[in-house]
Structures are given as C-alpha cells and as structure tokens.
C-alpha cells in the first residue's frame, strides 16, 4: 500500500549517493522531497510539514549532512530530532487542585472516544494516584451515552453522577460538584457530548460549562487516525476553551498518527495520554519521541527495547543467543522464549514496533493470531522431554500421539515442526550475518 516508512523511502536516494564523494544540493532536495511525502502520508498537516521541511533543508544543506559519511542516516537523524523537538517533552501529569476536588473536563468531536477515556482516566487516577473520582454524565444528546458511562462506572465500581437527558449539562455539572464536595471525592471528571468545532451553539455551551465549573484540566480527546482536518479541530477547541492538554485515542491501530504533530504544532499544548486499547486499563503516558519514530515509520524501537528489558531475563537471553549460535535451540527453549515474548504484551504490538518488520520476507503479511500460539504451546507441551530436545526422532505414531494430546491435528504438528526447522535455519543466517560485515537488510536505521 501507500505506506512506507521514511527509511524505506530514502533507500532509493541513498543508494544513488553512496559511493559519491560529495552530496550535492540536488541530492538533498530529492531527500527532503521524500521526507515531505513520508510526513504527508503519515497525515501530518501540510503547513506543519512545510515549516519542518524548511528547517530540515537548512540543516541538511549545511555541513552536518553533506560532509557526513552516511548522508541518508544523517538526514533521518536530523528529521527525527526536529520532529522530537516539535513534539516537546513528556507531560503525563494531571493537575491537582489546592483545594479538592480537582475538576477535569473532556471535550472533542463525536466518536473520538471521550466516554471511554473518561472511564480509563478515572481508573488511572485510582490505580496510580490512589484518588477517588466522581464521573459526571453530561452527554445528554447522544442516545445511551449516559448508560455507557454508567456501565463503565459499574465495571470500575465507581460512582457516576447523572440527571438524565432533560437537564442542561451546565446544571448537571454544578450539582455534581456539590455532590463531590459532600462525598469527599478528590477528582471530578466531566464527560461531555461530542460536537463539531463548527457548531457555535454547542461550542458556546462548552464554554459556559467551563466558566461555571472552572476546570483545572480541559482535555481535548482526538482520534489518532484524524487526517489533515486535525489542525482545524484542535485550533477551534483551543481557541474557545484554552485546553490544557490532549488525549490521543485509538493509537493501538495501525495509523501513523501524524495528527499528533499537527495538533501540537497549532495548539502548543502537550499530548498527555494515549489510548492503547479497548480495556479500561489501556491508557498510557504519551511518549513524544516514540511518536516521532512512529510517524516516520521507523518502528517504536525504544518501546520495544524498554519492554524487552523489563520482561526478558538478561542471563537467559545470553544463554539463548549462545544456543542459537550453536544450533542447539530446542523446543524447550522455544516454549520459554514464547512465554517471555507473551509477557511483553500482544504480539502484533511487538511486531509493529520492529522497524522494517513489514518489509521482511514472510513477515510482510504475517497476521499474528494469539489463539494459534495457544495451539503451538499445547503441541509442545504434549511432546516428551526427548522429543523436545531432539525433534528428529519424530515419527508418525509420535505425531499422532502429540496431536491427540494437544487436541490438534497431525498436519498442525507437522506444520509446527517445519516452522521450527525453518526458524533454526533463519537463526543461523542471522547469527552469521551479525558476525560478518554489517547485516544486509537487517540493520535497524538507528542502531
């Protein structure tokens, strides 16, 4: 499809200039064009792209890039630095009022994920900061929106304040505040109805709500998949409400998320949190630098490394590496490795984080089905110790027994055996590559 990361995009140009003693201005121009297209494909607003490209060009034409030995890498580095700077530092703190309750107001377009985020935020406040939030249902327009928040409240075992759909949202919020004081809630999170930034009547209502409850935080909730229009939306909401931060939702999708950059550029307000899934504990701190990598299609190397570090026992990893090299990798190791990988989180998340994974042969369209992993696990667990150590002893009757024991079929067992064999071969190639000169096709753009 149309989506290529910057690294892939630049391959062609880089190929042309390798071997050249000097990089010409024309080469730089070509490279910045590719950068521009990559950013546009990632949904970064074109005005934002224009400004960025101007700065990147200035730096690229300077000594920094032209005299470097690896101009391609250098361009990527410059781009990433500029993006990271534009994205700003990390700000995942939520304001706390001197005198509780702290009031948090949610705003955004229809379908951005305000109600879900309200639930997630409440969960985070309780879990991480030990707070006791009161949820307030001020979406009186969308059918069953109140019911949705109430259901979330039930799931979280948290109180939800609502007055039905016939009361004015401003009045609901006022009453909720009184109740929060009475019942000593230290946070009040107000869910509001989704509205178009062009709808002046509803935008005025939000402003009125703001003036009445004086929120300490106003979060604009934005769908990470938003296209070029993100700037208009963010600008309008910010102008009218002077938001304090942004929550980017649906980041667990496969969007590049260039909207993040656009929003930051036009509002200069921090993106504080990211929605990473449908479950109520899937709200994470937003990492600007990782977002920059993602927009460029370079994979979220940092996140991957961090996840791997926390989950993989280093000693075990070293042992594994030795085994790979000596080809003594067995099904027992495989099982253990699977367990470690699984503890890092959903597999397709991990795949998405590996730069170039989508370019690797065989992995390109690999759809990872977690259910299949359960089968694989069952098959291995149905093997005897001996079989796990040495799959070459496998014969028809053994396979039949394994299939029966794991509730799978012989063909599934065969498939796994074949895959295991191929994997071992691949590992051998990889370790050879590492030993030799720079690995072809496997080197990560930033490592």
């Amino acid at each position, binding site marked *: 499809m*149309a989506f290529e990361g910057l690294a892939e995009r630049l391959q062609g140009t880089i190929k042309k200039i390798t071997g050249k003693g000097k990089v010409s201005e024309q080469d730089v121009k070509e490279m910045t064009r590719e950068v521009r297209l990559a950013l546009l494909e990632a949904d970064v*607003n*074109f005005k934002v792209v224009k400004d960025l490209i101007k700065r990147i060009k200035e730096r690229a034409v300077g000594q920094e890039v032209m005299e470097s030995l690896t101009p391609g890498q250098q361009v990527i580095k410059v781009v990433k630095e500029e993006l990271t700077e534009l994205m700003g530092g990390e700000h995942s703190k939520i304001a706390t009022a001197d005198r509780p309750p702290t009031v948090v107001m949610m705003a955004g377009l229809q379908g951005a994920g305000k109600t879900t985020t309200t639930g997630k935020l409440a969960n985070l406040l309780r879990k991480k900061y030990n707070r006791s939030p009161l949820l307030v249902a001020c979406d009186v327009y969308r059918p*069953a929106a109140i019911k949705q928040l109430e259901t979330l409240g039930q799931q979280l075992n948290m109180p939800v304040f609502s007055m039905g759909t016939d009361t004015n949202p401003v009045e609901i919020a006022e009453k909720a505040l009184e109740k929060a004081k009475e019942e000593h809630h230290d946070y009040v999170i107000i869910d509001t109805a989704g509205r178009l930034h062009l709808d002046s009547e509803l935008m005025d209502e939000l402003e009125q709500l703001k003036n009445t409850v004086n929120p300490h935080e106003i979060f604009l909730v934005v769908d990470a*998949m938003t*296209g*070029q*229009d*993100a700037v208009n*939306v963010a600008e309008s909401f910010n102008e009218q409400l002077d938001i304090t931060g942004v929550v980017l939702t649906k980041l667990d999708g496969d969007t590049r998320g260039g909207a993040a950059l656009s929003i930051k550029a036009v509002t200069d307000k921090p993106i504080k949190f990211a929605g990473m899934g449908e479950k109520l504990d899937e709200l994470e701190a937003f990492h600007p630098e990782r977002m920059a990598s993602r927009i460029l299609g370079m994979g979220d190397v940092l996140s991957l490394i961090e996840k791997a570090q926390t989950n993989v026992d280093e000693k075990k990893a070293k042992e594994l590496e030795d085994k790979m090299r000596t080809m003594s990798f067995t099904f027992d190791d495989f099982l253990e490795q699977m367990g470690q990988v699984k503890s890092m989180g959903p597999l397709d998340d991990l795949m998405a984080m590996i730069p170039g994974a989508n370019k690797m042969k065989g992995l390109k369209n690999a759809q990872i089905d977690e259910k299949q992993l359960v089968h694989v696990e069952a098959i291995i667990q149905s093997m005897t110790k001996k079989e796990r150590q040495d799959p070459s002893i496998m014969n028809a009757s053994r396979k039949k027994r394994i299939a029966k024991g794991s509730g799978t079929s012989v063909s599934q067992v065969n498939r796994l055996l074949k895959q295991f064999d191929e994997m071992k071969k691949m590992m051998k190639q990889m370790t050879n590559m590492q030993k030799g000169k720079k690995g072809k096709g496997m080197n990560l753009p930033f490592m």
Partner: protein
Amino acid sequence: MGFMDKLKNRFKQNEENEEVSEKYKEGMKKTRSSFSGKINDLIARYRKVDEDFFEELEEVLITADVGVMTVMDLIDELKMEVKRQNIKDTQEVKEVISEKLVEIYYGDDDEEIEQLNIQKDQLSVILVVGVNGVGKTTSIGKLAHQLKQDGKDVVLAAGDTFRAGAIEQLEVWGERAGVDVIKQGAGSDPAAVIFDGIKAAKSRKADVLICDTAGRLQNKVNLMNELAKVKRVIEREIPGAPHEVLLVLDATTGQNALNQAKTFSDATNVTGIVLTKLDGSAKGGIVLAIRNELNIPVKYAGLGEKITDLQRFDAHAFVYGLFADILEEEE
C-alpha cells in the same frame, strides 16, 4: 460544451437533482469553501502552469485527504494532459482538474454503483462494519428510518455486544425509526445475536435486516476473524446474503481510511461505504482515493445529526459541491 457546463446543466435540467445538490451544498459548505477556495487561490497566484504550480496543486489535494498515491497519479495525468493540449494558462487547467476528479470516481462504471442492493421478494441483509467511533449505530438508525419511509419492513440486530451502552443506543434509534431491535445481553456472542436477528426477520417476513457490529480497529486479527464469522453465519442462513456489507468511514479520517477499507474488505468483502461526519470541515477526499485504489463506491453520506441527515451518495452532487464556488463564479 466544457465539462463544467455539463455538470452545471445536469442540475439545471432536473429539479430533483437540484434538490439533492442543494442538500450537499448546504452540508458541505465548509468543505467546499475551503477546497475550491484553495484551488481558486492557487489559480490566481500562478498564471503559468509550471512545476511549482503542480507542486502546490499536489498540496491542495493532499490537504483534502485525497490520498498521496491518488494525488500522484492525478498530477501525472494532469501533466500529460497539459502537455497534450498545450495548456499554458492556469484558468484552463481548472476544467481539466475537475474532469479528472469525476473520472477517478466513476472510472468505467456508471451511477448504478451507488444503489443499495435490496432484493424484491426476499429478505435483504445489510451488515454494517467499521472502526470505533465512526458512527455505525447512528448510520443504522438513519438508514432504518429511510428504508422504512420507502415502505420497507425493517428489523435491526444489536450485534455490538461489547461496547458499554451500544445495545441501548441502537434501541433508542429503533424507537425513533419505529423498527424492532433484536438483542441479547451485553457480552453475548455477536454471531448468535445476528443468527437470532435472521430468524426473527424471516418469521415476521421483514424486507430488510440491518446488523450492527462492534467497532474494531482493523489490525486486531482476532476481532476481524470474529467479524468474518458473523458474515459466515449470515451466508449460511440465507444464500446470497449479506446483500450489502457497508463500511462506515469517518470523513475526518486521514490516510488510515485506506487501510481500513482494505482490511475490512479482506475480512468481509465490503460492497459500499457510508461516509459520515461530512458536515464538519473535513474534506472527504478520501472517497476518491478509495475508489481509485480499491474500487469501492460510496453509497451514503452522513450530513448531520438528525435522523433525516443521511443522503444517497451522488458523486456528481459531491463534486458539484466541491466546485460550486468555481462554477457560480463563472456565471
């Protein structure tokens, strides 16, 4: 007669068409003023057709979320056309641009592609799919209302058993449209709900069954498999069904909409698109990209929050809406 005149006459001749185009013009006011305004700006700024002009045009189209690949193709074709016809003046290019846009949308097909496939003497099943928050349930409510107005007997199946409040939301729409909603409890198997829906629709000899599903991001393999299963259940119960698989797309979505269209098509063979939230300032240019790259037509457009605010998609009206400023200015 130039292309613009043809487009204009199309709406002058026929009053019904005029009404349609008025609705689009109203709904897409913001869209139009920004898009065609930009093209006008562009044309005023550049008097000569050169590289800079094309680069800027490229940007204008990208800002409309048309999709990078489609824009590249379009620009290449324009460059060819300009060379062929020896066009030097930017004013003349304007005509070629809009002609190409309509061409991209229709390709070799005619307007039939926008019709909803409703069977005559048999139950028609419409499966509605899409990512979270695009407006599936709302669109179903509007569509049910419209079909009911056309004299159809409609039943809804509450297949979104996952999101909190989704069933209740569909029930409210069912009440508004005056149609029955078949449901089970939250958390139940969506395929089972749809199965119930089919049984119920069959026994009361309904004309149309519209199946709601939970929103899901297209990269969640398990959830996409679940959707494929729902479709298989429908196929098994009624040969030839589902008669329509409608993918609901949010007009504010950027390039990811292409991924959505592609992946949902792989899982459920999407037959048409409902483009929602076109009453915002988003440009909806993604329609062209999806038609160009995946050949899926748009069947409906959501132009507001009222139950009547769902319109049959009409690409001529859509393009007319985009270019109305330019057309009227020439009179």
